[in-house]
C-alpha cells in the first residue's frame, strides 16, 4: 500500500510485537473492519525496543503485545514503560501460552484487554471505536 496517497491525519498505527506472524496476519485480516470508517489502520510488526520508540511519538495508536512465558518479565518492563511513554496507546495482550497465575502478573498494568486466539479480535471493535473517539475529542 502506498501510504503517501493517504491523508496522514487518517492513519492510526497498530503495532504488533510478537514472535512469528500469527497476530500480524490476524490484525491484517480483521483490523480494517475494526476501525472507524474515517480511519485507516497502518499495521506494523516491531520488536520490543522499536515498539517503545514508536510509542514515544504520543499518537493515538494500538499495541498488541504477545506475551510468552519465557519473556514475561521483559514484557512487564515494556508494559510499564509504554504506559508512561504514551497513555494514548490502547494496549492489548495476547497470552495464549500463559497460565492463569502468570496472567495475574500482568494485572497491575493498564492493559485494555487480553486475547487468546485471533477469532477474539472482532469482539474488540467497539472498544477500539471508543478509544479513538475519546482521543480524537481530546485532540480537538
Amino acid at each position, binding site marked *: 500500500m502506498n501510504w503517501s496517497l493517504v491523508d496522514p491525519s487518517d492513519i492510526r498505527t497498530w503495532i504488533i510485537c510478537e514472535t512469528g506472524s*500469527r497476530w500480524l496476519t490476524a490484525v491484517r485480516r480483521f483490523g*480494517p473492519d475494526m476501525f472507524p470508517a474515517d480511519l485507516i489502520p497502518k499495521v506494523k510488526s516491531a520488536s520490543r525496543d522499536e515498539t517503545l520508540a514508536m510509542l514515544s511519538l504520543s499518537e493515538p495508536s494500538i499495541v498488541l503485545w504477545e506475551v510468552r512465558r519465557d519473556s514475561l518479565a521483559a514484557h512487564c518492563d515494556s508494559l510499564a514503560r509504554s504506559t508512561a511513554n504514551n497513555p494514548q496507546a490502547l494496549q492489548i495482550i495476547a497470552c495464549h*501460552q500463559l497460565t492463569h497465575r502468570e496472567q495475574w502478573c500482568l494485572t497491575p498494568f493498564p492493559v485494555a484487554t487480553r486475547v487468546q486466539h485471533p477469532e477474539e479480535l472482532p469482539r474488540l471493535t467497539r472498544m477500539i471505536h471508543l478509544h479513538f473517539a475519546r482521543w480524537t475529542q481530546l485532540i480537538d
Partner: protein
Amino acid sequence: MMVSGTGIRPLARLLDKSKASVWAISPGGRLIYLSSNCSQWLGFDSALLLDRSSVAGAPISNEKLDRIAAALAAPAELQRRGTASLRISPPSLDRHRPETREVRFIKIGNDNPALILAIAGDFDDRLPERELQDAVAIRQQLDSWRRHHAESAINITAGTSKQALRLRRRIHVAASTRTDVGLFGPPGSGGESILLRIHEISAPSENLINVDGPLMDSDLLDATLMPARHQLAENKDAHVTALVRGLDEMPFEAQQRLANLLDTFSGRLRLLASCGSQLMELNPPTDDVMSANLSFEDERECGLCSQMIDVISSLTIVNPPLMLRVEDIPLIATAMLDARYAAGEGPAERISRAALDALVIYPWPHNYEELEDAIRHSSRTATGSVIACEHLPLAIRSYQPGSISNLAKYTKLSLDDAMQRYELRLINDTLESTDGNRAEAARRLGISRARLIRRLDDHSSGTPSPKESR
C-alpha cells in the same frame, strides 16, 4: 480387600461395589461396560447404553441414548497420549439431570486403537500441553451446545456469538410453532438443512413437497403442487409443507399463485422458503428483515412480491454469512470433524491450533458449504489424529490477508496535500544528503535557493501555496 484370580468378574464386582462411575470403551468405540454407579449418576439403567457408539462426542443418531453414549466418549488424541481428563455433563434422559463429573480416561495397552477405561472422580494432577487444553475446551463447549440444543443441533448453529444465539432461538421458535418461515442467507449458508430440520422437528409425519423456485411459472407450480392440493382438498385434516428453494428467484406470477394457494388452504399448507439475501441487505441495521415498508422498486430488487412478503413475515430467520461469525468457526469446524470421525471417515479427531487459525483467517466466500468441503478434504488427507495446516485445501492454507482494500477511504485524498508532502520529503531528503547546505540542495533539485527556502517556510508555517507547486 484382596481378590485373587485373573477373571473379569471379581474386578467387575469390585468396581460395581465402589462408589465411582467407571465405564469401558472397546477399541471399536462402543461402550462395553458401565459400573452400577453409572446408573445412579445418569438416572436410568446404564445397561441400556451397552454396545452404543461412544466416539468423539458426536452421536450417530438423534436418539437420546446415543447422545448420552457419545457424551461419555474419550477426548481427542487419547489413543496417542494414553491418558486424559475431561469434565463430562451427560444429557438427561428424563427429568433427572446428571451432575458434571471430572473423568480420567486411560488407554489400556499399546494397541491402536485400544481399550479405554474411564473413571469419574476428583483429579488434580493434570497439566497437559496448552494446545490440548484448547481442544478439551472446545469439546466441552460442543458438549454443552449438544446438551442444550439436542434436537436442532445442526453444525451451522454451533457457537457462542450473538448471531449463533439468535439463529438458534429463531430455529427453536420455527420448529415449535408450525408456521410459514422465510429464511434469508447468502448462497452456501446451509439454509436448506435448517429448513429440513425445522420440518423434521415440527411436523415429521407431514408430506413435504420440494419446489425449485427459479424453474417455476404459475402453471408448473400448479402441476408441482397438484398432489398436495388433492390431498388437502380430499382430507380436511391433512397438512402439507412446501419447501421452496430460491423463492426470491421465482417469477412474481408464480409467487402470487403460491400465496393464493397458501391463503386458500389457510394454515394446512405451510411454506418453508429460502429467500436469498437481498431483502436482508435492504434492511441491514436490524435482524428483522421485514421492518421496512418496501416500495415497488424494493420488491423488484429483493425478488419477493408483496403478498409473499406478507406470508413469510410470520417468521423470518436470518442466517448470517460465516465471515460474520468468526468466533464460531473453531466450534463449527470441530463439530463437522466430530461427525466425520464418528462416521469413520478418517483418523483425525481434532484440528490443530495452527489449522484453526488458518480457518479463522480465511474469509469463506462460499460460506458453510466451503467449510464443510474443507473439513471433508482435511479429514481424508490427514494421516494421523490431528488435522494440521498442510492438510487443509491449498486456497485456505495459502491465504494471506492483503493490504487495506477499503478504497472508499481514499476519496478524501487531496492531490495538493499529497504533492506538498511528497515535495517536502524530497527537499528534506536532499537537505540531509547535503548536510543542510540549502544552496547545494536547491541546485540538485533544479530550483532556486529562494524557492527552496520559501517552500520550507510554507511547510513550517502550515500555509501551503499550491499554485506555486505546479
